[in-house]
């Protein structure tokens, strides 16, 4: 694992790479002013997926906790932000009506709060139980909002008012994306990031060396959820519409997974490449494969995890630089049975 960060750090050491990063961001900033609104839409969605991918990668790729509930935090962010700019429609007091930026931050904090409350419960679970537990948690959040029509608009959905132009929303999303990428980069390369990777590789070994697993898991989970909530909050303000069926749908989780798996789990560059590829796939495939696009995406997830488990980033950056230790970590010597089903 360490080598991946090193290669990425090496990537950023050179001024050339920083310049490239800045150039890409500037080029993206020009998108709404130089292209059609159709393309702006697509690129905006791409930025949403960068944030979702980077944030899920933090909890799953780095801290090793396969959460299948990311959609709940995206959806919570979207709904909280919708309520904050357009409170009257949910019967909430006019006094909480807020500008878009405050609403998006409110969405992020709402999602973070949900994660902070549920985290201690969910982290009593490990491995498979955690994965299914988070899936159940996301379903409950969705079902509760579906049931609470007053707050969610039911199946007709919830329409949002704000006075932002599409261009401004795009720039906000771009700023949020840059922020999320930089913050994640900082976390991953900090002491906390080291703790997360230690838990990923071997939780009991990390714990015996004085790493507090719950602390780092919660850290990754809450930060990751805040980021997903921010993406949801801005997405809601861009599309001006949320709906419990689609905004909280497991589809967001699936797409996030596609982004991270194709790009490369546990790498910084992976979700960035993955989101770009996902956009091409999603728009390209839909034009010629139509409904089969989703089937192909599912197939790609499987094919990548089986044949290219490091994802495209690892494949591109260094075929042989990948550290395999997470795959065969079984240091605690409790394994009674050999593969195929240890752990």
């Amino acid at each position, binding site marked *: 694992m360490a080598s991946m960060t090193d290669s990425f750090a090496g990537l950023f050491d050179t001024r050339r790479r920083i310049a490239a990063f800045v150039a890409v961001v500037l080029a993206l900033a020009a998108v709404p002013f130089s292209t059609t609104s159709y393309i702006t839409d697509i690129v905006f969605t791409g930025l949403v997926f960068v944030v979702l991918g980077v944030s899920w990668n933090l909890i799953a790729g780095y801290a090793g906790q396969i959460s299948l509930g990311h959609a709940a935090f995206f959806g919570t962010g979207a709904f909280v932000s919708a309520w904050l700019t357009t409170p009257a429609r949910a019967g909430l007091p006019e006094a909480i009506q807020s500008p878009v930026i405050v609403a998006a931050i409110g969405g992020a904090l709402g999602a973070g709060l949900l994660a902070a409350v549920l985290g201690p*419960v969910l982290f009593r679970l490990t491995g498979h139980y955690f994965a299914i537990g988070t899936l*159940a948690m996301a379903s409950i959040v969705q079902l509760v909002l579906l049931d609470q029509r007053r707050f969610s608009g039911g199946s007709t959905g919830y329409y949002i008012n704000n006075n932002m132009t599409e261009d401004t929303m795009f720039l906000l999303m771009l700023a949020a994306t840059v922020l999320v990428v930089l913050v994640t980069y900082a976390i991953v390369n900090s002491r906390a990031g080291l703790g997360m990777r230690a838990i990923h590789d071997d939780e009991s070994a990390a714990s015996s060396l004085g790493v507090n697993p719950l602390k780092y898991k919660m850290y990754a989970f809450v930060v990751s959820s805040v980021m997903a909530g921010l993406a949801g909050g801005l997405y809601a303000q861009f599309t001006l519409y949320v709906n419990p069926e689609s905004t909280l749908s497991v589809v967001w989780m699936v797409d996030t997974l596609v982004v991270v798996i194709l790009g490369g789990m546990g790498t910084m560059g992976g979700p960035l490449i993955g989101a770009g590829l996902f956009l091409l796939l999603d728009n390209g495939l839909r034009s010629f494969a139509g409904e089969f696009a989703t089937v192909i995406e599912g197939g790609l997830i499987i094919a990548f995890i089986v044949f290219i488990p490091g994802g495209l980033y690892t494949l591109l950056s260094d075929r042989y630089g990948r550290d395999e230790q997470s795959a065969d970590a079984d240091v605690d010597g409790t394994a009674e049975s050999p*593969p195929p089903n240890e752990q």
Partner: protein
Amino acid sequence: MVASDLVFQSLLNGILLGGIYAVAALGLSLVFGIMDIVNLAHGHMLMVGAYVAILLFGVLGVTPIIGMVVAFLVLFVLGMALQRFLLERVVGEGLEQPIIVLFGLALMLQSIGRILVGSESQATEIGIPGEAIAVGTATLSFPRVVTFVISVVLILGTWAFLKYTTTGLAIRATAQNSSAAQYMGIDTDNIYVITLGLGTGLAGAAGALLSMLFPIDPFVGWSYLLKAFAVVVLGGVGSVAGTLVGGLILGVSENVGVLYLGGGFRDIISFTIFLLVLLVRPHGLFGSSGGGE
């Protein structure tokens, strides 16, 4: 307050439904207990089984009970192929790989289902004629009673298979200690293939049973996965008898809970029970993870 007649009626319906829930969970529980894999596509395989039965009934007029046998066989073969050609490659590589492969498979099954049959709900609207049965103040619909009986037969059959056949013995041996089983001349790779086939076959059968009572659409997979997992957690991983108990608990709590909270809460009830049980007992109500029987 809800009238006691209604509660009694819901209780009985809950028990009848619980039998099917137990079958739906049995395959998941066996695969988890024996192979330490949670089949995230279990609910979607159940959905496929339901459509096999619906199709056979709708197109060929085949009785749903035969449809159930066909659904079992179709999913049995699919499960064996899945283990042989995909899961075998990723098991032992860590936790994420099998989870993600099966998540991808679930996505594929759901999308293929949507393409083939559309998003509308369908039901067999069977199929099993017969008078409603009066029990005290309650009445039981005949199809529900029939599906319950079939469920119990399936569960007993699985138990007997594991207990009394050589293959069943080999499966239990592999679950207890796969390397020792290997030294005794058991082809554990094959045992895993058969186990996954059995697990997914049971998902298919459960789907066919559910299609006789409830409308099915391609998106029911996640919901039934979570319900099946709730039953596994309630009954104990890998325990056949526990699965029946877990199924009954879930069926009854859902049906009685809906009386007080309303129909929108059916899934919320089962998922919440599931999370609460995990909160108290992180590895399930009855004990440790792993282990056969």
